[in-house]
């Protein structure tokens, strides 16, 4: 069963076409990475899923129910963490979660245990101050807690890690991984290492379309071959190498030969020793998301 199915949604702002047929689906108990550049339309897609934005076409099904503009999908189905979460500054975290829980119709005893459970999960249990003084990272944690308060089947996080330092990012990713036990998670990002760390499925958004979507294994299968990455001592030598191996590309002073077979590897090493080119490093690495991302956006 898929918790979320997005089919061919379209959206223009004025004459600007932002979404032009975005489709993907999110299976149960999966962390779904929604990848795209800044301004690719990730937030727009998420707001459409939540019924906060009117789409120009297409269909969205959440928990088997059609989502429409202005109506939140079946209450208790989706939890949402906005990209810049804003809360009532005059409340403290506990009071805010209580408000959210009451609105989603939870009983008071259930709510009490749920709040202390969540505050501990996101590490705000010792925080007694009002939200007004919270740092960005603390707001992000509170945002996750409020999104999970009514145990939604689908948790949507909009760039939860983009504005945080490495430690904060790791914390948030750990919280999201922990949430996987209870829900499916869709999170948008442009940080590929985060996706590799916790996601099991991904979709790339580029040019208003889903350029690729599938599980990480599928991606690895498509890009089964490893790449060769060569760092040389003399920068001038790089031209000689790239003229001999036209498939390769130069990136950051490094020579990269994508989809290199065993033979390519041996050929390259033979070429290097024949030409007496001194090298600093020769590495075989798994094709990663970055390669795929670059390929998708055509660079």
């Amino acid at each position, binding site marked *: 069963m898929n918790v979320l199915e997005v089919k061919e949604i379209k959206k223009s702002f004025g004459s600007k076409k932002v979404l032009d047929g975005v489709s993907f689906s999110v299976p149960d108990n999966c962390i779904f990475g929604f990848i795209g550049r800044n301004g690719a339309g990730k937030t727009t897609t998420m707001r459409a899923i939540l019924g*906060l934005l009117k789409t120009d076409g297409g269909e969205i099904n959440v928990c088997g129910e059609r989502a429409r503009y202005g109506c939140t999908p079946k209450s208790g189905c989706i939890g949402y963490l906005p990209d810049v979460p804003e809360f009532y500054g005059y409340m403290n975290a506990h009071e805010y979660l209580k408000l959210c829980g009451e609105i989603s119709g939870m009983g008071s005893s259930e709510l009490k245990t749920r709040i202390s459970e969540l505050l501990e999960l996101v590490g705000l249990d010792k925080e007694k101050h009002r939200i007004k003084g919270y740092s960005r990272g603390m707001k992000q944690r509170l945002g996750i807690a409020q999104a999970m308060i009514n145990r939604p089947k689908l948790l949507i996080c909009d760039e939860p890690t983009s504005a945080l330092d490495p430690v904060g990012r790791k914390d948030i990713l750990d919280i999201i991984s922990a949430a996987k036990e209870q829900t499916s998670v869709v999170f948008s990002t442009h940080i590929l290492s985060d996706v590799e760390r916790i996601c099991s499925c991904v979709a790339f958004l580029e040019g208003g379309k889903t350029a690729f979507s599938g599980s990480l294994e599928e991606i690895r299968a498509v890009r089964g071959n490893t790449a060769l990455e060569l760092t040389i001592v003399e920068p001038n030598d790089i031209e000689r190498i790239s003229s001999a191996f036209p498939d390769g590309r130069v990136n950051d002073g490094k020579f990269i030969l994508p989809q290199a077979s065993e033979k390519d590897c041996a050929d390259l090493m033979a070429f290097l020793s024949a030409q007496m080119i001194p090298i600093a490093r020769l590495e075989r690495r798994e094709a990663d998301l970055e390669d795929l991302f670059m390929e998708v956006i055509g660079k």
Partner: protein
Amino acid sequence: MKGFKVLLKKEICEIIRNKRLMILMAIFVLVGIMNPTIAKLTPKLYELMSEDFAEQGITVSAVKVTAMDSWSQFVKNVPTVLIVLLIMFSGIYTTEYSKGTLIPLLTKGLSRSSVVLSKLAVMLLVWSIGICLCFEITYFYSDFYWDNSVVSKLFFAAFCWWLFGVFMISCIVFFSSFAGSGIQVMLGTGAVYFSMTLIGMYNKAKEYLPVRITDSVSLYKGEYEPKDYFGAVIVTAMLSFVFVLVSLPITHKRQI
């Protein structure tokens, strides 16, 4: 309905914690005390100035103050307090829409109507309590110093003021359903008031306009009877109701 109750609690917590309630109530009480005090002090002021006047050859006959003076102060000062209240609440909807603080709540299944109505309720609550306080204080002191019985239709006049406040608050609700900022809401509400006054100046419709019910002095002096105001009272009540009703579907369509 559950959402409405929870939100109402939140709104009350909000005006308490950001001190709006305290400030407004202080103003209402202050004005309530000021009305009779100014009336009481008027003869003293004249006395102080009478020497100056005498030098200039003007003789001031002793002024006799009655409860009427205290109540005409009331009519002069209540509009100011109402304006302060309207300005304080002008952004009550739009700041939430533009900051996005409602998004987490709306995605949890809160209905937009609850948002509109709970904020309306809290504004009505503050206005009702405030005008009551102000009225009662003025009533008590005026009766203590003078005699309220020389002023007629006090309660009906106060009711009219309350209703007029309700109408202005419903203007805030209406303009907030599509305006982008508190200032726009304020401008819209002000425009409604001025266009009403303008129409009232040249037109027979005057008798049925909401501004009509703010003419308390004619009531106090017995020049008009409550029945002369009924048309305007009914129009004001209907307009307020329609404004709130219309704002519900508009808010529902609004991009938040």
